[in-house]
């Protein structure tokens, strides 16, 4: 009795958040690698969470940790979530792969969802990712249709398969319109440094490209392109506000549908391990409205997007040669997902060299 009183007093003093209430709510927890104010990768994940809250209302409770460094801190952050009563934990960066699996082994009753990785060492770990390359292919088609110089500038972050795959898809899309199309690549060695991204965009424009696309997070390249009067593609979010007369379209990461589906599955008790790699068809990848281009280019872009969405066409369909001219895919052959996920070579026509 006395102990109960004490506990009651303690909880009254500390006003511990309604432990009883939490029982009938599903708790979904998220770990972001950047600040939610990055207006890029982490921001878009958080937008997905806001969609989730709106859709599921009172039946879901969410929590997040932002700017969690990939390294020793990640495991602690995930474990803290697992211990704090989360039913499902989304870890939204590749670097969280091993910590996620480690913690998952210790908490078999909690569901774990790791973005962009490939390890599912326990039945309670799923992985998910988006086929951004579908959008990149469409961008390539648009770029080659519009570019007078026949050269596009590509601001890349780091040479990981995801980025290499994007460059290749862009190039294949461009080659489908103009076989001699060229792309100039600058590696910024950062996901996020607006100043450096702006510098990279300027360097590319000064070397004669007349369309810019980026695989880094900030809106800086869009602003530079607007200032210099050329066209550009956005990244991660719709950046039209930063270049109303500049943005052709943007690949928007839309994680909301997936988060809603998975949390609902937890609520229904139907959650199962899965490996989802969604593109246009699943709503993971959304193209921002096509703008600032002639109608026939817009029509071509829409047609390409629709073909990919319906499954009629796969961007990586042969014949495709590797950079050195050796054949990779025979005519009509479609690349398998495993090769794409581990892609570390360029297709023919790209001048850059990958570190090896």
């Amino acid at each position, binding site marked *: 009795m006395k102990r109960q009183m004490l506990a009651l007093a303690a909880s009254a003093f500390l*006003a511990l958040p309604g432990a009883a209430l939490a029982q009938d709510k599903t708790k979904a927890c998220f770990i972001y690698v950047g600040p939610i104010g990055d207006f890029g990768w982490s921001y878009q994940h958080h937008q997905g969470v806001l969609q989730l809250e709106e859709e599921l209302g009172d039946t879901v409770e969410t*929590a997040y*940790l932002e700017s969690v460094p990939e390294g020793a*801190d990640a495991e*602690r952050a995930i474990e*803290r979530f697992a211990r704090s009563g989360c039913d499902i934990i989304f870890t939204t960066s590749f670097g969280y792969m091993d910590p996620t699996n480690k913690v998952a082994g210790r908490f078999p009753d909690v569901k774990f969802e790791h973005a962009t990785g490939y390890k599912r060492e326990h039945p309670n770990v799923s992985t998910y990712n988006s086929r951004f390359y579908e959008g990149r292919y469409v961008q390539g088609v648009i770029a080659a249709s519009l570019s007078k110089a026949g050269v596009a500038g590509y601001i890349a972050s780091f040479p990981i398969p995801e980025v290499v795959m994007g460059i290749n898809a862009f190039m294949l899309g461009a080659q489908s319109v103009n076989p001699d199309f060229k792309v100039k690549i600058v590696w910024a060695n950062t996901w996020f440094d607006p100043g450096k991204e702006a510098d990279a965009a300027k360097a590319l424009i000064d070397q004669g490209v007349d369309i810019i696309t980026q695989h880094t997070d900030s809106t800086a390249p869009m602003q530079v392109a607007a200032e210099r009067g050329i066209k550009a593609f956005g990244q991660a979010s719709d950046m039209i506000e930063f270049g109303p007369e500049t943005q052709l379209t943007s690949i928007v990461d839309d994680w909301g549908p997936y988060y809603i589906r998975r949390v609902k599955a937890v609520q229904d008790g139907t959650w199962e391990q899965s490996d989802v790699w969604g593109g246009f068809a699943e709503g993971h990848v959304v193209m921002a409205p096509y703008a600032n281009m002639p109608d026939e280019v817009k029509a071509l872009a829409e047609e390409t997007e629709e073909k990919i969405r319906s499954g009629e066409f796969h961007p990586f369909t042969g014949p495709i040669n590797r950079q050195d001219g050796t054949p990779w895919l025979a005519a009509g052959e479609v690349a398998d997902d495993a090769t794409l996920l581990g892609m570390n070579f360029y297709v023919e026509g790209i001048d850059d060299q990958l570190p090896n």
Partner: protein
Amino acid sequence: MRIELVKRPQRSALFSMLSPFIALGLTLVAGAALFLALGKNPGEALYYYFVDPLHETWSLHELAVKAAPLILIAVGLSVCFRSNNWNIGAEGQFIIGAMAGSILPVMFPDFQSWVVLPLMLLLGVAGGAAYASIPAVLKARFNTSEILTSLMLVYVAQLFLDWMVRGPWRNPAGFNFPETRTFHAFATLPEIWPASGRAHWGFIFALLAALVLWFVMTRTLKGFEIRLLGQSPRAGRFAGFSREKMVLFSFLVSGGLAGLAGICEVSGAIGQLRPIISPGYGFTAIIIAFLGRLNPLGIVAAGLVLALTYLGGEAAQISVGLSDKVARVFQGMILFFVLACDTLIHYRIRLVAEPAVRGEGARADV
């Protein structure tokens, strides 16, 4: 109204003990005000910040994991700062140490034996020390400012690591993702008490390093030499000590310990090399070195406190919904209070209502 400091004849033992608690009191008051202003329950927020991370065993382990590299680096830096050498590139030495130590498990994964781990630790120390010797030699020989060189070398080390894990050292079975193969069992720094959490031997090394350096600094001739050269290079020269040798010595010690911290972090807490292995330990350790008053034992305490603020910040984010930014602002406030309260050790603070009478034009008042 002005604040005036009056130097105490000698450092106050009382305030030496008391100042951290005054700082804590001020922090609680200011923190409560901050959280209240943000519409949070201050009692709850402070509880999660300071108490929650301490009442579970796993969380104590995490505290040790977080504090280990900070303490290891900071005690090494204290030798540098005491001898007036400004090594602010411990972050780079941490990275190079981690890379040097990883040579064995990454390049020779089939070499599996109990000697691997000790060799890795030695290589880690050697790598960190070697990298630290660059600014040291440049300073001793060419008089180049070590502040600049050690800082610039941090960026170089980060890029070098980045290139290695994306290129030559990439895990052949890792789908070309930027990470090395995971270390085998012989290359993994064991946990101290595996049943209850993941604190590894790095924490023990940190405590040992602090004890050893405390002994060296306070009880040996070398410690005297370090302090003398730091306080008065001229006096040091007259005593026959070499400034150049001290530059090298202090950099080797701090670089070696930073390197050890690096290999312990990689081998104990992460288990492989990745493009980013440190969330800025080398810079945070500079703060810790001074919070601990450049005393190795004080540094242990300071390292634990700062580690606690990271853990507490997370707990408060999750439980009370304080944002990461608020946690960092609060962390900055804590640091300011601790630093300010340490003033009481050497000075009495007097509030003066009117400007002091100016005599002979030899006063400098605020």
